[in-house]
């Protein structure tokens, strides 16, 4: 395209004058520099699977909020005249063995499952950032002790501990969230610590330290924004894990107590009825899977978008 040839002798003499272009034009040729998060978003947006995860998640959240209001039923009232009904205009997702409307219960369950997932992630984040941040930033002996303690706790098999706690403690939402976070934060703490250690010695932090910035300020201004990426990924992957664990516990009969309905309890109640009333399993199972799917692809998408190695 740029190859336009001209006979050397045809060149008009005035076009061979020096012109000064450098000062104003030299910078124009460089690609516009994007801010980090804008860049991440650009790359994330190109990942269609991850984007579909976001759309799916927004739909699920919307239905969790408004779904139960769309029907004249509530999640706990039995109706023995309409037991195990197939999906119809009256009951969109059918009814269960006590005649409760499954559409209402599924979205009520969405609230509980998502609440468990998000709470677990937020609590993990809270403890993990504090623990890992302090350990990494202070370093030395304190770091050694804190991380050893975490290692020992980490070695305790997660699900066994959760089961044990659920057996002993009073069943309920709070218990479940406590049980899940009791060792869940360790992963977050390790990641935060690793990031802090890596960043601590980088020039810009050393520079602000020599300039006399206070520890708090360094943490807030430099470390936390820079560790956001891996933290975000870990959180997105904690949520589906928690929802999974909830379903697992429900199946063992350690779920939230009736008449509360989580997707896990609904699915495990629906299992034995699978042969005759498949919709009782189908709806909760589908939505558990869709939710976990959405979070997983979002997490993958974030990881790819945040990985600077792929930056071209």
């Amino acid at each position, binding site marked *: *395209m*740029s*190859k*336009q*040839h*001209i006979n*050397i002798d045809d*060149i008009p*003499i*005035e*076009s*061979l*004058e*020096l*012109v*000064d*272009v*450098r000062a104003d*034009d*030299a*910078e*124009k*040729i*460089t*690609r516009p520099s994007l801010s980090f998060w804008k860049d991440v978003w650009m790359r994330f947006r*190109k990942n269609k699977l991850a984007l579909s995860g976001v759309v799916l998640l927004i739909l699920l959240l919307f239905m969790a909020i408004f779904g139960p209001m769309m029907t004249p039923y509530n999640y706990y009232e039995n109706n023995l005249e309409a037991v195990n009904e197939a999906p119809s205009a009256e009951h969109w997702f059918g009814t269960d063995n006590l005649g409760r409307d499954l559409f209402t219960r599924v979205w009520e369950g969405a609230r509980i499952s998502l609440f468990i997932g998000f709470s677990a992630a937020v609590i993990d984040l809270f403890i993990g950032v504090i623990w890992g941040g302090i350990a990494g930033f202070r370093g030395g002996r304190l770091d050694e002790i804190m991380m050893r303690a975490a290692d020992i706790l980490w070695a305790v098999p997660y699900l066994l501990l959760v089961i044990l706690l659920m057996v002993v403690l009073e069943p309920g939402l709070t218990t479940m969230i406590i049980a899940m976070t009791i060792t869940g934060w360790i992963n977050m703490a390790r990641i935060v610590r690793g990031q802090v250690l890596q960043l601590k010695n980088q020039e810009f932090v050393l520079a602000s330290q020599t300039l006399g910035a206070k520890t708090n300020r360094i943490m807030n201004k430099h470390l936390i924004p820079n560790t956001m990426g891996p933290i975000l990924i870990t959180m997105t992957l904690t949520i589906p894990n928690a929802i999974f664990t909830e379903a697992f516990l429900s199946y063992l009969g350690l779920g939230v107590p009736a008449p509360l309905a989580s997707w896990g309890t609904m699915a495990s109640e629906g299992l034995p009825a699978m042969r005759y009333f498949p919709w009782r399993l189908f709806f909760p199972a589908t939505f558990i899977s869709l939710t976990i799917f959405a979070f997983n692809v979002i997490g993958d998408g974030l990881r790819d978008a945040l990985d600077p190695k792929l930056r*071209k």
Partner: protein
Amino acid sequence: MDKVLEVKDLEVSFFTHAGEVKAVRGVNFEVRKGETLAIVGESGSGKSVTTQSIMKLIPMPPGKFVGGSILFEGQDLVHKSDREMESIRGKEIGMIFQDPMTSLNPTMKVGRQIVEGLMKHEKISQSDAKKRAIELLDKVGIPMPDKRANQYPHEFSGGMRQRAMIAIALATKPKLLIADEPTTALDVTIQAQILELMNELQEEFGTSIIFITHDLGVVANVADRVAVMYAGQIIETGTVDEIFYNPKHPYTWGLLSSMPDLTNEEEELTAIPGSPPDLVNPPKGDAFALRSAYAMKIDFEYEPPMFQVSDTHFAKTWLLHRDAPKVEPPPIVQKRIQYFREKKQGKGEPNGSR
């Protein structure tokens, strides 16, 4: 002298989301038997793409040969199949890479990594290949080669690893060796040792070398001829003496003035302002014009042809047009040219050509 390699009008592009990146835009050069050609340029100038194209190591897709030919001993490599290339790579053409840290397989013993290539190209037994590998390690200056052959790369230092890489590349006595910034990742003292080793081995094997670097300082010590690349094109080419004593292209001047560690005197280094152009939409005319202090109106209209300076010296700049204003290189470059001349006379030996 006969040509080992002749690259003609080579064009290589990468087809990405952002569009066609024209990484190599019509490159011509040749390598004669036993000589060293240095290709110099900033990162992103297309020098690595050019040389990896010769070995066909460019991932395709997204890479693609758009035009031109690569004649190795008269055969066009562009149209060779993967199968045919396998018998050329590592046998006829060897390659050394920039980072010896990552260029060796960390989970394979160093000896085995040499043996592997030998066994592929020569009909020799495992034990003979092993013997040859140990000899090679000895030849590239690795002490206790029989013990070292049984070690993993992480047990080697950076300089030793690069020596091992050279042993791998020269195992089958290739006719052409491509060294892609082989000393960039090494300490200065080790750099010198590696360069010396390459010079020695070149004399012994009669290998031709393409030496890629962004550092003109290294070029003076190894090369016979130099090609300066910018934005996917060769913009000046000549013998070492011509490039160092009589550079013609403003970009070459820029490279010369940004070269560190030449003298002990304190002097400022001048960086070339701006950055290389976007090769998705290469600028019209002279790609360097926007960064040049010697740009002319015509630079924004027409791409300059290769003007001949001498039999061996060519430069792609409108400044060489007979009607163009006569400009002198900037003072710092003149000073350096002066310095090279003095150094050459003082030492009584030519700086660079052996």
